[in-house]
């Protein structure tokens, strides 16, 4: 395994110190500190052991979060092979950036940010290669009469994936986070690294673009 640059100031703390630190940091945000921070202390303990060269510690972190990351990456690619590669990419990138994790936010939030970055990068790469799925003609006909309530979840997910795929990656990302991941403005800002104002503006623009695209295509048909 690749050696990680150990920041001893952060990672030489004992689990008890980590736990106490998290209680102080997050107690104001969350009254149920004990449950929340216990899981975070486990994460930090595993991260610290990973720094010490314990491969099993990183294995535990992967096992703990891979399903959550898999759910997120499924929004970025619905191809099974690509999806699995993206999940792998996230954990490789997490491992290589582990020394940058400063405990300012729970590990799962930091992980989500990296996953968003990996997914966004994938879309940008796809855009450069011009490899986006397009919505089939019959779907355009259906859009005006479609009733999502009566649709199969798989079918709905496939259609929304293709519809959002019409947009540039930046717009697609913000709508995916706001609608599919149901992120608040604040969460979306954290995930993307943008300001809250930027998230609001980007969402408004992306919605406008999508509306225009759908109406334009429907007129063409």
């Amino acid at each position, binding site marked *: *395994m690749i050696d990680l640059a150990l920041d001893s100031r952060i990672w030489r703390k004992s689990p008890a110190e980590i736990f106490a630190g998290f209680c102080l940091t997050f107690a104001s945000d969350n009254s149920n500190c004990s449950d929340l921070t216990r899981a975070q202390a486990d994460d930090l303990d595993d991260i610290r052991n990973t720094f010490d060269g314990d491969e099993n510690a990183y294995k535990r972190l992967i096992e703990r979060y891979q399903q959550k990351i*898999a*759910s997120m990456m499924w929004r970025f690619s619905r191809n*099974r092979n690509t999806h699995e590669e993206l999940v792998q990419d996230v954990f490789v990138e997490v491992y290589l950036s582990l020394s940058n994790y400063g405990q300012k936010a729970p590990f799962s939030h930091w992980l989500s940010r990296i996953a968003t970055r990996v997914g966004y990068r994938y879309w940008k790469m796809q855009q450069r290669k011009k490899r986006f799925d397009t919505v089939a003609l019959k779907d355009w006909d259906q859009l005006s009469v479609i*009733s*999502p309530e009566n649709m199969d979840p798989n079918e709905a997910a496939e259609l929304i994936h293709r519809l959002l795929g019409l947009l540039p990656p930046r717009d697609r990302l913000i709508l995916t986070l706001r609608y599919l991941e149901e992120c608040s403005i604040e969460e979306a800002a954290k995930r993307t690294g943008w300001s809250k104002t930027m998230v609001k503006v980007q969402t408004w623009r992306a919605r406008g673009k999508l509306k225009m695209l759908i109406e334009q295509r429907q007129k063409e048909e």
Partner: protein
Amino acid sequence: MYPEKLIRGLAKKAAMEATPEVDVTYQVLARLRSDYSQATWQDEKPFMWLAGISTAAALSLAALAFIAYYLSSDPLSEISQTIAWVM
């Protein structure tokens, strides 16, 4: 249907979809190990070049030294070789 309402409706329905199960533990650890061996190889690459150049230089010097020794140990060999060539 108004696009935003449509997207919200589709997103709500899509949220019910079951995500495929994955287990990437082995692949991730294998990739990290191979990245490590690759990184180690990359680190050692300049030393490998240095070792190659040193070996080539040492072999050339050894060959020159052997020729010089051969010539100096038998001073008449050059004359005898010239005579042999003329005849």
